[in-house]
């Protein structure tokens, strides 16, 4: 885990609530945390450089824009092939997330995950077919899990150390 200090944690907790829509938002969140505007900006830049923050910007809720055919495709890939296959999958523009996760045997044998978001199920299935054919994944055990309802979509909150900031 990358070392970040308590103020960084508090800053990330504030960001989970969103940067305020005011002319000088960094000054406003800084005032709540006892930091200057310049200090907030410098800390955010540092968190981005270290890779703790992957992306700073507008967080779009794609569901509200009609992207409701959301499929998680999972494969049981041999351990020594998963990284190469994952890198190939991630290169497709319609793959919005791609990662390897730990299996939980015997309940869950799949380790390679790719998300495809689209407006229509048929189009998403065509794109998944393309992945299976072009990346050579059809031979592997796989499943497509469409999402049919979203119950919650919030920013991540990391508990202890952050609670004080709110």
């Amino acid at each position, binding site marked *: 885990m990358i070392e970040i200090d308590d103020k960084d944690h508090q800053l990330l907790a504030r960001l989970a609530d969103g940067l305020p829509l005011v002319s000088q938002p960094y*000054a406003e969140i800084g005032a709540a945390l006892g930091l200057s505007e310049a200090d907030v900006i410098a800390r955010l830049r540092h968190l981005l450089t270290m890779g703790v923050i992957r992306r700073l910007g507008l967080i779009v809720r794609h569901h509200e824009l009609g992207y409701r055919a959301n499929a998680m495709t999972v494969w049981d890939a041999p351990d020594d092939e998963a990284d190469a296959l994952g890198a190939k999958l991630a290169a497709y523009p319609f793959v919005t997330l791609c990662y390897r996760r730990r299996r939980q045997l015997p309940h869950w044998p799949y380790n390679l995950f790719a998300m495809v978001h689209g407006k229509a199920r048929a189009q998403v299935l065509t794109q998944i077919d393309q992945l299976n054919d072009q990346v050579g994944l059809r031979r592997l055990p796989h499943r497509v899990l469409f999402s049919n309802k979203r119950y919650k979509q919030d920013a991540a909150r990391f508990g*202890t150390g952050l609670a004080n900031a709110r």
Partner: protein
Amino acid sequence: MARPQSLSRRETDLLNRYQRDFPLQPRPYAAMAEAMDMAEDDVLAMLADLQGRGVLGRVGATVQPNSAGASTLAALAVPPARLEAVADQVSAFDEVNHNYAREHEYNLWFVLTAADDAALDQALAKIEASTGLSPIKLPLEAEYHIDLGFPL
């Protein structure tokens, strides 16, 4: 289910342009306004309106998993008749930030975040105790995709 929102060209431009590389300067919305040939107040009003319509979640950060705490994907195999009730129970946990139904025997999928792995396991144990169902825990091992936002 509400009808999908449609976007004006200018809204689409704004959302595509600033899902990443949000200006790190004292007046970020003024910097965006200048780049978009708009007034700062108009950018602020447009963002507030998009937020009101549910299209913009927030102006914020996506955090690298496991860099500022611990997180995991988890799932439950819920008897279909109980799905809505169990989904509500799971969503009520502060540690749960995403929670979706999916078409599979494991039909409820959620992401948990907490200070560390022990706190994740505690939350999963509480979920198991309150629902009577055993979650599977599928922590991240490698990520292949760079998060660039979602092109519209």
